[in-house]
């Protein structure tokens, strides 16, 4: 039987990644060159520094992806690439390299939305069954996405201010944790108790939207106030209280969405999907929905990587959704809103 191999590219933020994916479900290689150590010097991602690192890495990652997969260009069916959302200068390296490879070897080019990629990281656990609902939580995004059928992604709710991952990084800084802070806050949270009862913003609101800036401010104010009166707060309890507030809001909105939109699967994806507190909580909540299976993106594919782009790209490949040599990066690319929810919002 013929196998379809996709060479996939991802460079939207601080990881340069190239992968070879077979039939959208088997990873033959997934090279990830991460710049985290570089940006940790600055306390966060510096876009121009990121772009400079991407161009240093890109062709070495291509070569390694092919050699590790033990394939040549002749074996490939298509080239897929993240064209947004993300940092424009960073995206441009992947887009330019992918277009060039597609042209050089006369392969079809598949533009992939980075967020669709995150969702399809879950495809490496099991096939996606439609309709499905995805909770996407990352450093740049927090959204609930409805998947009616393959290739259709519609937003039903999203954050109105900070992304959940962004809030983790900001409160992490207050706790003296370097970016990316999620993993360490998650670890501390498991050692502490929710004693501070931070606000759960918009939790009673009818929309499926999120808000995390109020929680972040409440956290920072609490710590600063304690500093002023010379009191030291328990870091573990602070982390636990913050994480509980985030998880409560994410879980409550997701449960409400599952009630409003009967689906076969709930997909948890994005960088913050690696958070153990969130994974555990949603697993518990899902017991109320015996007909819904819970598909969690594998922890090692929660961060940015090209394998997830290859999986999402394979869906476009089957639907004949191709781009051309004029493809440009679209830093503010988003899914469309599901019409009914936008009317309600």
């Amino acid at each position, binding site marked *: 039987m013929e196998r379809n191999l996709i060479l996939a590219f991802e460079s939207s933020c601080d990881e340069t990644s190239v992968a070879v994916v077979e039939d959208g479900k088997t990873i033959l290689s997934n090279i990830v060159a*991460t710049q985290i150590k*570089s940006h940790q010097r600055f306390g966060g991602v510096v876009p121009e520094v990121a*772009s400079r690192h991407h161009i240093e890495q890109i*062709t070495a990652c*291509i070569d390694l992806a092919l050699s590790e997969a033990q394939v040549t260009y002749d074996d490939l069916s298509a080239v897929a690439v993240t064209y947004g959302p993300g940092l*424009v200068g960073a995206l*441009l390296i992947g887009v330019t390299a992918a277009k060039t490879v597609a042209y050089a070897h006369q392969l079809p080019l598949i533009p992939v939305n980075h967020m669709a990629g995150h969702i399809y990281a879950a495809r490496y656990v099991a096939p996606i069954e439609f309709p499905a609902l995805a909770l996407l939580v990352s450093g740049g995004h927090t959204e609930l996405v409805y998947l009616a059928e393959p290739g259709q992604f519609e937003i039903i709710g999203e954050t109105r201010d900070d992304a959940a991952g962004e809030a983790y990084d900001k409160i992490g800084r207050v706790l003296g944790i370097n970016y990316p802070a999620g993993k360490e806050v998650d670890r501390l949270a498991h050692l502490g108790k929710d004693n501070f009862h931070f606000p759960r913003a918009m939790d009673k609101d009818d929309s499926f939207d999120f808000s995390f800036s109020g929680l972040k401010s409440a956290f920072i104010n609490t710590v600063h106030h304690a500093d002023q009166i010379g009191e030291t707060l328990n870091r573990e309890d602070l982390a636990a209280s913050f994480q509980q507030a985030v998880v409560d809001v994410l879980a409550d909105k997701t449960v409400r969405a599952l009630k409003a939109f009967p689906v076969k699967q709930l997909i948890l994806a994005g960088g913050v999907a690696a958070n153990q507190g969130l994974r555990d909580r949603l697993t518990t909540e899902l017991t109320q929905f015996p007909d819904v299976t819970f598909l969690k993106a594998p922890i090692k594919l929660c961060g940015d990587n090209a394998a997830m782009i290859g999986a999402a790209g394979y869906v476009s490949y089957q639907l004949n959704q191709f781009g051309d040599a004029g493809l440009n990066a679209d830093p503010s690319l988003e899914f469309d809103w599901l019409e009914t929810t936008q009317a309600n919002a």
Partner: protein
Amino acid sequence: MKVLALDTSNRPLSVAVLSDDQVLATTTVTITQKHAAHLLPIIESLMKVAGLKPADLDRVVVADGPGSYTGLRIGVTTAKTLADTLKLQLVGVSSLATIAANVMTDNQLVAVFFDGRNDHVFAGVYRIKDQQPVTVIEDQHADFGDFLKRIADLNESVVVLGELSAFSERLKNVLADRYLQYPAAFNLPSAVQLARLGNSVAPVADINAFVPRYLRLTKAEADWQKQHPEEDSSNYVEKV
């Protein structure tokens, strides 16, 4: 030898396809700001007109800096990816020298400027020898006034090319009758001249390590190095 030459280092975008010294097809566009969207379609159409497939190429020549950081990365990423994926020779040539190569008069001094904002420039000074620009003052990022003084100190007639709009008054005042003005078209890079200069440059040994010559650190990196003078900043990216 089949050569593809491309320059996207600033607002003008120039591409040429050559067979040895014969120009098969060339295009220069000055009005696009979307190099990422336009570069590859232009390469495709020129290659098609020239009757070449990508695999027919032997060499890619790219203007590798200085210039707009994003512009440089579009050209250099295209060139290094093409060279890597098709096993072609890759040659980098100064974006400033490419413009200096528009001048053919033997022994003529040529200064080329790109506007680096905040009264700074990316600039270099060349002397034309046997139709090749030979470096007199190294390509660099410099304060315009300081760089102009160094040119004036050469005490010689000089052709000044590049992005001059912010500097023309001071050039006239300081260099006076030693300032030789050429028609505006000479300020544009030509991928044909770029390919010609590329003929005498050895291909890069390590295509993967090839990056633009920005000639300037990012502000974050410069500040960090100032605070950590003893630390090596070369190994910050790791494969996981």
